[in-house]
């Protein structure tokens, strides 16, 4: 089975850079919080959502050196840029700083994390782009953080899928206003930024359940953002669902549209079928792709018809996560060359306004 698809020139929209150790952030953290961390014995914010020993958390070959997979910029550059010949890689750092309850501490950690990303990653290679990590605990502080970084190598705002309140609710809107003003999309990625159970019906027992339910949490967040009117209030906003599984979307749109016909009076600002709102504002990264093993042309054709547009899909490797099967590649193989170019790079180049030549210069 020779893979005919080369990702040369692709934009990899989901790469996970990791913090090697908490102290790596100390140079960027106010002294009061450095000492707070030291005195209270805080050891770090490595996400329990990706257990270090679980096969999904790190593909073979990604465990290099002392730090966690993805913590060495040189190794990541080799694995996601130089190796596959990618044009850009968008870094989504999952260090779970927004899961702490203290809003000031969470915001300070997020600020330090972004400073660290700029200094250690964006400066390391002009092909790296990063997402601004913010905590939803204090949306105004999050909005300030978005404004602080807009246009400086950061191309997106990153929110964890598991939040204390649904992401559509108005308390979060300062974040969307800042993102819209900075012309940055907001990405939602599986991960924990709250103390809520990881399933809609309580705490699961196993990690495999936690991860399975991440697709459900993203569905809840998307439902919330549409119903609460985030896109009516922020018509320029784009939302990227990362590592979501993707193929559930048509079923959600059908159910949502059907309910909208009956219940739209509750949310009269949703003045079009939800599927239309979703197609105008939402993109999804293709790894993992919840698809049958022998995904063929008929399947892809049916999937894309139900989804609505190939322009909603973004190529992603999800480094260093290790998914089963080759569905994302099989999907690419079934696309026409023009469609494939859109998924591999065109959609992302436009969404993130990436220049043809790698560099930080902002497109106008």
């Amino acid at each position, binding site marked *: 089975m020779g893979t005919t698809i080369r990702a040369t020139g692709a934009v990899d929209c989901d790469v996970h850079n990791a913090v090697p150790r908490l102290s790596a952030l100390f140079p960027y953290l106010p002294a009061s919080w450095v000492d707070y961390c030291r005195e209270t014995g805080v050891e770090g914010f490595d996400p329990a959502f990706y257990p270090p020993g*679980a*096969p*999904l958390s790190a593909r073979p070959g990604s465990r290099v050196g002392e730090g966690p997979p993805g913590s060495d910029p040189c190794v990541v550059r080799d694995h996601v840029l130089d190796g596959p010949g990618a044009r850009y890689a968008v870094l989504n750092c999952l260090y779970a700083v927004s899961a702490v309850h203290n809003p000031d501490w969470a915001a300070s950690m997020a600020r330090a994390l972004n400073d660290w990303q700029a200094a250690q990653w964006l400066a390391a290679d002009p092909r790296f782009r990063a997402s601004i990590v913010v905590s939803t605990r204090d949306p105004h502080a999050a909005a300030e953080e978005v404004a602080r970084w807009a246009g400086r190598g950061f191309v997106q705002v990153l929110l964890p*899928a*598991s*939040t204390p*309140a*649904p992401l*559509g*609710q108005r308390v979060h809107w300062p974040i969307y206003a800042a993102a819209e003003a900075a012309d940055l999309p907001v990405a939602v990625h599986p991960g924990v930024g*709250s103390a*809520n*159970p990881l*399933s*809609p*019906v*309580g*705490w*699961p*027992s*196993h*990690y*495999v*359940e936690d*991860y*399975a*339910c991440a*697709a459900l949490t993203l*569905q*809840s*967040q998307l*439902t*919330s953002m549409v*119903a609460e009117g985030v896109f009516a209030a922020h018509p320029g906003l784009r939302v990227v669902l990362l590592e979501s*599984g993707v*193929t559930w979307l*048509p*079923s*959600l*749109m*059908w*159910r*949502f*549209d*059907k*309910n909208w016909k*009956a*219940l739209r009076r*509750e*949310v009269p600002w949703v003045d079009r079928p939800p599927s239309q709102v979703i197609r105008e504002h939402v993109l999804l990264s293709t790894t*993992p792709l*919840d*698809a*049958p093993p022998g995904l063929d042309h008929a399947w892809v054709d*049916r999937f894309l018809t*139900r989804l609505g547009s190939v322009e909603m899909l973004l190529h992603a490797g999800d480094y260093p996560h290790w*998914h*089963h*099967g080759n*569905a994302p590649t099989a999907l690419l193989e079934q696309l026409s060359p023009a469609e494939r170019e859109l998924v591999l790079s065109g959609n992302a180049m436009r969404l993130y306004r990436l220049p043809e030549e790698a560099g930080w210069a902002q497109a106008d």
Partner: protein
Amino acid sequence: MGTGGLIDCDVHNAVSGDEELRPYLSQRWRRHMELVGSRTFSPFTKGYAYPKAARLASRRDAWPPTGGLPGSDLDFMRGQLLDAYPVERAVLNCLFRAPEQRYDAYGAALAAAVNDWQVEQWLERDERLRASVTVPFEFPDLAAAEIDRSSAHPGFVQVLLYPRTAAPLGRRQYWPIYEAACRAGLPVGIHAASTTPGPITATGWPSYYIEDHTGLAVAFQAQVVSLIFNGVFDRFPGLRVVLLEGGFAWVPALAHRLDALHARLGEEVPDLRYPPSHYLRTHIRITTQPMEEPERAADLVPLLREVGADLLMFSTDYPHWDFDDPYRAFRTRVPPDLRRRIMHDNACATYRLAS
């Protein structure tokens, strides 16, 4: 319909008020009813945190002229449903708030009363009717005792749970329910219901009923995930689970997801004997209402086949507002053999109905 008989897998018979259950309660619980009565997770005695699309979530034409609530009058139900369509059997799922009681013993007493009331007022008055056993499922030992007691009546064909539980249903605490259901030879039905200890999302309470209702599909999926990965079907090989009113278009994507995750992370759950999709196909059945409505109506038949011709069972949800009319719900031509399985045969097999 043109295909003969119909098994309607989801019909709601209603208790019109607490007083209707009084004859089925002991003096102690009658007094409790007067003293404090229902204590659920709702902040109101009568209102709703998420008002439904219509009063009592019901069709406006389903209020019996004799008074009482929609679904409370068998004669009226006959006229609107049982005689109006070729209904061979209808499975009653009474949603009276017995399982949602926070006081375990009162919940158990109400559940027993509801079941006795169902026998007397419904099962023994129309031979087309079957019913689900109401149980206080958050207290599984009490639920198991009620299953043992009520399942003696042949009219009960299912044990009724709701999807919005205090913990995922695969967890060990709920296993006594499955043990009792297997002992009684009954499937366990999980039916959409309203008040609940937790929100319908993993991210807190949404603001609107449209989110709550749309979100029911994810609650059902989470229960499927839990049941499968906690090994419930390996431990209880005879157990069958029916998902009622949770949608079905999500099945293929979830099945692919779970199989891929099992391939990568299966070492964590070594007791699972099969890939997750196997359990979905062999142990789980799903009712059709609210019927999925793909944007292109013709996409429905391929979807039905993807989900599985043996998995789906037709339901109307009478008398609720999102009722599916057996003649109109599909909106597209469904091949006769597939239609017959969905309208009739699958339910006969699941509920062991002679036909």
